[in-house]
């Protein structure tokens, strides 16, 4: 019988920006199992959201996660609006899409850089993060913050994008596309990158469905699943084609995210082209009452908000099911059978966001 060794991975680890611990069970160099242990960044945010009124909560909910902050506030506001029967002005809906898709671009670029870092391709990491600054600059110019935008509110958005900035958004899209064309061949075609990603961490379609994974992880395993096709908000005006791959390995997950980068650029452009004139914010009266489930497609997958109001300005219950929480069981299915040196790449390929998961 081979002797088993247990190696702790995390909570403090060079490739992990966030603390999660996986106890890796090894037989020689092969990993045969992984035991996760979480709770290092649990704050108790859901309880706090019930102690603040529903407008104050927006700023708290943005800080569930710093990477997809706008999409969290968008999901929450959509839920409250549905509860209160508020019709959001069409301009606000389009503006929300612009910011949401820019957030997706910045999140995917961040992920791609960290993936390059995880297999030691330092110069590619730097190149991708330099490109990411372009997105952060335009977000700062339009919304006032680099990562925490704070623009989404119940009944619309808090800021308009004036016409001269709209031109700049379009110019940034062109600039980004040129950047992408420059470095994306390195991710997809480079020999040494492919050695580390092709065939590593395979998740078959059956296991993906069984474990209930979401977002790019599910799509890379051939599961057609993208909540944007449900046409919430201004997505009703656009056709979003889910990007599907069949292989289910790290390379397929990279390919899905690369194609989504171009798709997001396209959606920003479409949203700008069809931007209606008029109000971007309507005053909201009253308090939320009833219960609602609100779903939004985030860069990492689908986020689900359950909100229950009681007619006062405080919510009775707020519950969040975040995409990484759904993807963790999938991750545990990918790890057994791989080499120890592939573990960082596999963990990063699901784009983990632990502060979302634990709140």
């Amino acid at each position, binding site marked *: 019988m081979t002797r088993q060794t247990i190696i702790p991975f995390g*909570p*403090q*680890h*060079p*490739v992990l*920006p*966030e*603390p999660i611990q996986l106890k890796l069970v090894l037989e020689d160099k092969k990993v045969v199992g992984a035991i996760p242990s979480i*709770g*290092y*960044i*649990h*704050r*108790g*945010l859901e*309880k*706090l959201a019930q*102690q603040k009124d529903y407008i104050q909560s927006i*700023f*708290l909910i943005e*800080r*569930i*996660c*710093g*990477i997809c*902050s706008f999409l969290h506030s968008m999901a929450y506001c959509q839920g409250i609006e549905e509860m209160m029967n508020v019709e959001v002005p069409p301009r606000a809906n389009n503006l929300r899409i612009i910011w949401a898709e820019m957030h997706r671009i910045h999140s995917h670029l*961040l992920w791609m*850089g960290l993936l390059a870092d995880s297999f030691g391709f330092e110069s590619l*990491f*730097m190149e991708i*993060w*330099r490109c*990411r*600054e372009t997105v*952060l600059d335009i977000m700062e110019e339009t919304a006032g913050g*680099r*990562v*925490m935008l704070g623009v989404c509110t119940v009944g619309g958005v808090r800021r308009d994008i004036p016409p001269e900035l709209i031109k700049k958004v379009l110019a940034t899209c062109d600039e980004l596309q040129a950047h992408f064309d420059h470095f994306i061949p390195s991710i997809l075609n480079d020999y040494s990158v492919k050695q580390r990603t092709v065939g590593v961490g395979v998740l078959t379609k059956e296991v993906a469905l069984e474990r209930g994974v979401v977002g790019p992880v599910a799509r890379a395993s051939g599961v057609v699943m993208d909540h944007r096709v449900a046409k919430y908000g201004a997505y009703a005006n656009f056709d979003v084609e889910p990007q599907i791959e069949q292989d289910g390995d790290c390379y397929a997950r990279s390919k899905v995210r690369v194609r989504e980068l171009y798709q997001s650029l396209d959606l920003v452009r479409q949203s700008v082209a069809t931007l209606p004139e008029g109000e971007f914010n309507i005053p909201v009266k009253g308090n939320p009452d009833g219960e609602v489930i609100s779903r939004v497609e985030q860069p990492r997958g689908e986020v689900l908000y359950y909100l229950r109001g009681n007619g006062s300005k405080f919510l009775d219950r707020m519950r969040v099911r975040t995409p990484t929480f759904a993807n963790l069981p999938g991750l545990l299915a990918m790890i057994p059978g791989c080499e120890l040196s592939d573990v960082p790449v596999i963990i990063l390929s699901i784009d983990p*966001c632990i*502060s979302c998961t634990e709140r």
Partner: protein
Amino acid sequence: MSAFSKSPWVVHYNCNSCNGCDIELLACLTPMYDLERFGVLNVGNPKHADVLVVTGSVNHRNAPVLKNVYDQIPDPKVVVALGVCTSTGGIFAECYNVLGGIDKVIPVDVFVPGCPPRPEAMIDGFVKALGILEEKRGGKDTGSAEKPTITLFPPAVE
């Protein structure tokens, strides 16, 4: 300045943060802001590091981990605390699982306020930390940093 504080190696630990500060810290290290021009290098092993960068507040689960990482760094060492969560708990201060600022567990040398702080503010904090590192190397007791004060409500206008 000696050669020692011209190549400070940094180890980063995310305590209870929402990621906002962490991605801004990484943005600091990449070409746009480029902390490497001060010799700052991000390392994974606390035993190689001179500077500990912490984001977020502490809870029961990560306080021992933070203490452990701090104890492994060889002397002289400085602690840079990024974001408002590290001083008081910030927006999460009233959460049931947040104990408060990291100064409850380890001594802090520089607080960088903001939610999240801008990369420029972080660079400023690092430069300040390098001065403190140099003083500590000379055997001087620098004490711990004062917490940034936060005004929750602006004073009423008469």
